[in-house]
């Protein structure tokens, strides 16, 4: 299989049950947040499909059930456990993930979250967990990559003012706070406006008007999904891109499939999470090289970062399981598998990832200029910068805020 090559295969003799691995994913399957969730689902399904086509995990096939996370994270997880799942994935929601962690520890069935980006979750709230993981790179990374990108494009000296337009919930507030800390540390720039439109709003013009009148050098936005499209549409309509120097938005690219050619014009930069297109180079590793075509023909969309969240969460667990079988000569217990997952390194088409000792994922961050790809009829990134994991996320065990302060 792809996962292992070599003659004397310890897996062949391993004591592994015949029945397939059962897994469950909870994610946003409909409505506005499905821009993220459907991609995560495609990613997870693609990973499962690839695993099964390649003789499964140590020979075991894998089944995946998907359920809408709505606001029933805990009940969903419990239902999965009751149904006898070997592992669960998701959710996307940050509060949902925070709510689940203790329950996961109590139920002792591994969950690998696809997103669930609460900054402090594994740093402060649950520094010492066993069964709960987050594939997603430390979310500090996206805000800081945006800082680095802004500095890269404009130069630290020419950034005097910045503003933010972020969705009005914990994620948006966290991101803005991190971005502010980072950019003030690096450039000494001053915040001139920070607005928080409602999540899923139909109109951001008031914030854009305000940004226009302040004309900051950099605008940061963690808007995603429909909010990202809306921001770009109204930004263009109100000539925001004439008033500002750059817009950096780590999650804008998540709407790659919904943006049109005219929307991506202008000094707009995005990327960050596990970006895999053109960078890291895909030409020599077929799982990466085939991915975009496979996804386009299977689902009619290009994969985005959240696709990789789903893909990566499944792959992290599956590769670790196979590693454990190889080590133990049998199928691991939950606890053993959890131990293997710590400090586990593995490849996805987005590059090399590790799950840190703090249970969250680390990998390089990528940021580039939003452009249009005629080939894929979707938005793409150009001139991608790569920021090493250690430059955009604190080392395991350190508190982000302290670490940024030490820049």
């Amino acid at each position, binding site marked *: 299989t792809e996962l292992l090559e070599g003659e004397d295969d310890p897996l062949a003799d391993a004591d592994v049950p015949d029945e397939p691995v059962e897994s469950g994913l909870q994610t946003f399957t*409909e409505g506005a947040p*499905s821009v993220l969730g459907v991609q995560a689902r495609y990613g997870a399904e693609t990973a499962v499909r690839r695993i099964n086509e390649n003789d499964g995990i140590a020979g075991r096939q894998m089944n995946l059930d998907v359920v809408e996370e709505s606001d029933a994270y805990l009940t969903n997880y419990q239902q999965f456990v009751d149904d006898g799942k070997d592992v669960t994935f998701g959710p996307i929601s940050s509060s949902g993930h925070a709510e689940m962690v203790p329950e996961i520890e109590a139920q002792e069935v591994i969950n690998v979250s696809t997103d669930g980006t609460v900054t402090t979750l594994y740093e402060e709230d649950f520094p010492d967990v066993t069964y709960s993981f987050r594939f997603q790179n430390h979310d500090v990374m996206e805000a800081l990559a945006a800082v680095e990108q802004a500095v890269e494009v404009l130069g630290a000296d020419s950034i005097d003012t910045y503003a933010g337009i972020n969705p009005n919930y914990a994620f948006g507030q966290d991101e803005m706070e991190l971005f502010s800390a980072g950019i003030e540390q690096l450039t000494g720039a001053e915040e001139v406006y920070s607005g928080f439109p409602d999540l*899923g709003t*139909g*109109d951001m013009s008031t914030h854009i008007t305000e940004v226009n009148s302040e004309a900051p050098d950099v605008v940061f936005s963690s808007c995603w999904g*429909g909010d990202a499209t*809306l921001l770009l*549409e109204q930004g263009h*309509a109100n000539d925001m891109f004439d008033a500002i120097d750059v817009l950096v938005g780590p999650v804008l690219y998540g709407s790659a499939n919904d943006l049109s050619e005219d929307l991506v014009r202008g000094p707009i930069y995005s990327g960050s999470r596990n970006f895999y297109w053109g960078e890291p180079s895909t030409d020599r590793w077929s799982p990466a090289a085939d991915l975009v075509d496979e996804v386009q023909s299977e689902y009619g969309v290009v994969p985005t970062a959240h696709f990789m969240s789903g893909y990566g969460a499944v792959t992290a667990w599956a590769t670790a399981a196979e590693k454990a079988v190889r080590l133990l000569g049998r199928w691991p217990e939950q606890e053993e598998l959890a131990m293997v997952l710590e400090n586990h390194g593995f490849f996805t088409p987005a590059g090399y990832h590790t799950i840190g000792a703090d249970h969250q994922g680390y990998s390089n961050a990528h940021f580039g200029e939003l452009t249009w790809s005629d080939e894929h009829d979707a938005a793409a990134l150009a001139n991608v910068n790569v920021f090493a994991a250690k430059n955009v996320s604190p080392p395991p065990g350190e508190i982000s805020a302290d670490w940024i302060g030490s820049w």
Partner: protein
Amino acid sequence: MLEHVLNGLYYGSVLFMIASGMTIIFGVLGILNLAHGELYALGAFCAFSIVGFFAGQVAAPTGPVTAIVFALVVLAGSLAAAAVLLPVGGALEATFVRPIYDRDEVYQLLLTYGLLLVLTDVMKFVWGPSPVDVGVFSGINEIPTTELVGFSYPSYNVLVILIGVAVFGWLVWFFDRTKTGRIVRATAINREMSTAIGVSTDRMFTLVFAIGAFFAGFGGAMVSIGPGSASLGMGLRWLVLSFVVIVIGGLGSLRGAFVGALLVGVSSRIVTPYFPQLELAVPFLLMVLVLLVRPEGLYGTWGEIQ
């Protein structure tokens, strides 16, 4: 400041289109239609399909003239999309709502909530679970209204404000000046006596529900061809905001709905930049304030509702 006011008028106009349908249905039928937000969402989805098709027939605008043609095509498309809501609204009224007019009003709430859920899944079945966007917004903005306003401002917003005023004008004209409109009002005031002078109240109610659905759908089309997109569940927020608007304005009052919508729109857009934390709460605070001062809303009543 002027720009913030314009933003508020734009927002208020969209709000009015949705709330007007709700206020009509409530004023005449006495039904608080919880599925109204879904009718609005349905309009947005229909606009995606129909406007998308229409816009595909004409070239993307290259200059002012073609932009105006383009805008007209899009407008025609959104009217066609909203027109889909006429039979949908009528059929919903005839099949589900009509049997329960005489029941306790709380059952109407439960029934329309059930309809809300079913409609959501109908849209999921037809358009899939993910948001869709026609993307004609920038095309319409090629119309050079910017010079007219005197500063850079999206033509689309101006267009929506004009349409909002036109819709209000049309509704007032229809209900105050046309015979059909007066008959509808009479039906609202006294159902039995309307029957006794030869009004088919069943048909009037169906018509009113259909008109209400039409304007919800038109509002949805405006949002979907605008910067927003059509997504499942998009109706919920607007449903609640429509409540707020019609209560501020006074139940069953069209003028109230108009003033209420603009008030909510403008106040929230003016307050937001200075007190960003209040964006979500402004409409509700406004409503509480209005009701504490004028318990019956800004304008009296219209129709049989006291």
